[in-house]
């Protein structure tokens, strides 16, 4: 089906001020959307309260209103511009909330403005906890078991279910006091009864705890013809219990077999279909590390922070495609902007690894509590691409600009063993560095896994990076000797190659080998150990790419020449 013939002018709601959890990624999404709409011949009216954005630049939209993002001003813009449609799913939660208010206040109906993309009802269904649980039950997708308890007898019943551990939250107490984690019947009765006393409503919520489960996300798209695709899946380095915005994230998933990958992919498609979303959607799932059991945790019925990451990670322009779907195009009518030969109706295949690390502001606020929980604290993030996990991680660390050039951080070095274990057991911004330090002190992967519940696949790779530090230290002299022999077949030259391949910077190599950085660089050049550049082309080289972007890596073929 071609685009809706009656949509000529579209109003786009921007994301407003940059706040924690909603940063420049929505400017990126909104800008893409405005351009995509204009490509299809629509006039674009943009309202955004933040002038320091790309989307408010004169050439992005046809009309730009820099006004407060509230019902009053948005209504005035609508009255003046009389758009045919409103696209709210690209401006983050701000845009979505404003659109909901505009619909509820009757403004959209009054001015005959069609809400484009995802229907309002779907948005409500995804965001209302009870409605969402009911929908998941209807379509057979599991959500974590939970109970609302008001009496001792009901508590005892929950004990019989035997799904330990359980999280207990008293309803309506000041600052959530009186809650806790119950690992057995005795603890549940104790915490639950205390909670019931503390709660003004004499009510506690008991929910199955998924702490330690794998956290996996899928970015999915759907068009009005019910065709669905997944753009990307991602695996969190930190298991459940850390907000995904505060978690180190890897794309694609690394520890899932095809059976697990497809099971969660099918669940995500089942969900986007049941919600009737037209555009993009983010599905968060928890997977038991020891079985096929999984739970649906959350759904974002809009372009989200994760979609911005997935877009850059795969080369698939989610916001652009979502905007085109919103005005009626189908996935198989939209061109793949990278290959220009294939269509947007496919699933990107990655032949590299993407690592995202959050950037926390703790260096600016010395006294802040560095622990990371379910409330997001990061104010930014970095993303790095390489052929493998280790070099991508090392690049990301260097991009953080926190003075770290590898897995070393000042604060962690001086910690006692006990303090170190504490830093590994409780999520915090320095956990990754603490884990590396633990490996330096000889701790085993199993011990770190027991403390952190991080999958051993990730831990082993950190351990290999630490092992390289040691090898460089031991062979420092042999590397220095290369300057005289220039023997590119010597074991020390191979070591240098390997260190570069897994992501060590010259500065790090120099530091561990006890040599000047300039020497490492000149040796490297003499042996032809130089970066090559490969494409992010959405298709793992299966098709030629017209507008790819590049990442560096130490591999054989350079595609940039």
């Amino acid at each position, binding site marked *: 089906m071609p685009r809706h013939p009656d949509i000529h002018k579209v109003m786009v709601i921007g994301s407003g001020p940059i706040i924690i959890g909603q940063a420049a990624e929505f400017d990126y999404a909104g800008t893409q959307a405005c351009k995509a709409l204009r490509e299809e011949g629509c006039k674009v009216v943009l309202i955004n309260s933040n002038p320091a954005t790309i989307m408010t630049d004169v050439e992005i939209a046809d009309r730009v209103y820099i006004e407060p993002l509230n019902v009053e001003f948005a209504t005035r813009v609508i009255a003046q511009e009389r758009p045919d449609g409103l696209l709210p799913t690209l401006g983050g939660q701000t845009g979505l909330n404003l659109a909901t208010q505009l619909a509820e206040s009757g403004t959209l109906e009054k001015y005959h403005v069609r809400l484009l993309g995802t229907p309002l009802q779907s948005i409500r269904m995804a965001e209302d906890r009870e409605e969402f649980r009911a929908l998941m039950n209807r379509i057979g997708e599991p959500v974590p078991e939970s109970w609302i308890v008001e009496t001792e007898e009901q508590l005892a019943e929950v004990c019989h279910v035997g799904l330990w551990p359980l999280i207990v939250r008293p309803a309506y107490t000041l600052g959530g006091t009186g809650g806790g984690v119950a690992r057995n019947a005795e603890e549940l009765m104790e915490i639950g009864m205390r909670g019931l006393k503390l709660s003004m409503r004499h009510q506690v919520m008991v929910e199955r705890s998924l702490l330690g489960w794998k956290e996996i996300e899928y970015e999915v798209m759907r068009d009005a013809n019910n065709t669905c695709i997944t753009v990307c899946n991602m695996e969190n380095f930190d298991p459940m219990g850390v907000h995904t915005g505060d978690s180190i994230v890897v794309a694609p998933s690394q520890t899932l*077999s095809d059976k697990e990958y*497809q099971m969660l992919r099918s669940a995500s498609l089942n969900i986007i279909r049941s919600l009737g979303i037209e555009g993009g959607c983010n599905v968060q799932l928890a997977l038991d590390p020891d079985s096929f059991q999984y739970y649906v945790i959350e759904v974002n019925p809009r372009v989200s922070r994760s979609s911005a990451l997935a877009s850059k990670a795969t080369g698939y322009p989610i916001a652009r495609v979502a905007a085109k779907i919103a005005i009626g195009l189908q996935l*198989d009518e939209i061109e793949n902007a990278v290959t220009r030969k294939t269509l947007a109706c496919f*699933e990107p295949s990655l032949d590299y690894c993407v690592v995202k690390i959050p950037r926390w502001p703790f260096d600016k606020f010395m006294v802040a509590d560095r622990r990371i929980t379910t409330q997001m604290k990061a104010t930014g993030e970095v993303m790095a691409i390489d052929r493998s996990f280790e070099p991508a991680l090392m690049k990301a660390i260097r991009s953080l600009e926190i003075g770290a050039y590898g897995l070393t951080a000042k604060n962690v070095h001086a910690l006692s063993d006990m303090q170190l274990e504490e830093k590994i057991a409780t999520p915090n911004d320095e956990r990754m560095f603490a884990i590396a330090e633990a490996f330096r002190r000889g701790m085993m992967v199993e011990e770190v896994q027991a403390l952190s519940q991080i999958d051993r696949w990730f831990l082993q790779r950190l351990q290999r990076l630490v092992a390289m530090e040691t090898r460089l230290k031991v062979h420092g002299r042999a590397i220095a000797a290369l300057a005289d022999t220039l023997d590119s077949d010597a074991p020390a030259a191979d070591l240098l190659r390997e260190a570069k391949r897994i992501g060590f910077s010259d500065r790090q190599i120099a530091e561990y080998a006890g040599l000047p950085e300039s020497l490492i660089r000149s040796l490297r050049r003499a042996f032809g150990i130089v970066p090559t550049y490969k494409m992010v082309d959405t298709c793992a080289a299966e098709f030629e790419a017209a507008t790819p972007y590049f990442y560096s890596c130490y591999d054989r073929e350079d595609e940039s020449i």
Partner: protein
Amino acid sequence: MKAILALEDGTIFEGESLGASGETFGEVVFNTGMTGYQEILTDPSYAGQIVCLTYPMIGNYGVNADDFESRRVQVEGFIVREAESEPSNWRSGQTLNAFLKERKIVGIRGIDTRALTRALRVRGVMMGAISTEESAAALLSRIRSSPSYSGIDFVRKVTTEEPYEWSFEGEPEFHVALLDCGVKFNIMRSLAKVGCKTTVYPCTTPAEAILERNPDGIMLSPGPGDPALLGYVVETVKKLAAKKPIMGVCLGNQLLGYAFGSRTFKLKFGHRGSNHPVKDLTTGRVYITSQNHGFAVDPNELKDGMEVAHINLNDGTVEGLRHRELPIFSIQYHPEASPGPTDSAYFFRQFVEMLRKQRGDRDVSGESAS
């Protein structure tokens, strides 16, 4: 241990040995799926081929007891950039390297797999060899004198030697006869899920022997190699098509193409991966499919009521056929998934619907006759 990969056109890649030492020859192909290496290794359609995976980190979740698609490793050789030595997954029982060693499969790791993929994309798939022993020059001359992939009937090598029944619990609704040209276990598992008990027959079984058992329907399996060599199977298919409902998968689609007047042609670098978009020409819906084929049916020669029902959105090639009157349909991709998306599992239900309809029609005609 060092290993080299040599391509027919003289390109050499140097890497490390993976799996068994020794040497192996085959057609070098690439697969872009990011998961499912165990299913790929054991898929009989890869017989005669050396498979390169474009995803660079392979072996992360190990090898387990459940994800076999046949009893043995079917690829001739295996190419990865990086093979994980310490897998992490609750079902993992073995590392990739140990598994390949145990099954005596020669592989190579540590090469620039993207460079190889680009070479195959530009120059087309070609013969190649992996060796832990030979020099590049010696290997190249032996590649040139080794038999070409297109000249070998791999179907005869991978088909079952004797007929067998796939285990089925309870009372099946239908009995399906499967002509095994290189079937994947998940086809039988998928048939069992929709209530069909399957008897698997060797590819050389005459149509009469199958019809004698009076199955409710016929499944034509996937399989390796050039379908042009399978005249003897096409003859069987022609005889079956006149008598029984048929569903064909992958090679089964190509056999039906031949049975209905057409032929196949070789694709430059094939379709191998889990992300191929296929359009159902009836509904307009697009499905992301799991694919593994190097040949495609020529749509122009189809005769006797056979028509194209599905096409690939990337290159427009035929991905499914349907007969206008007879209860016959086929798809060029993999509704049984494993690996890949399970979106097309509905074809097995569609097959059962067709069998039901056929039974209903028969009952009706039976009544009128009596």
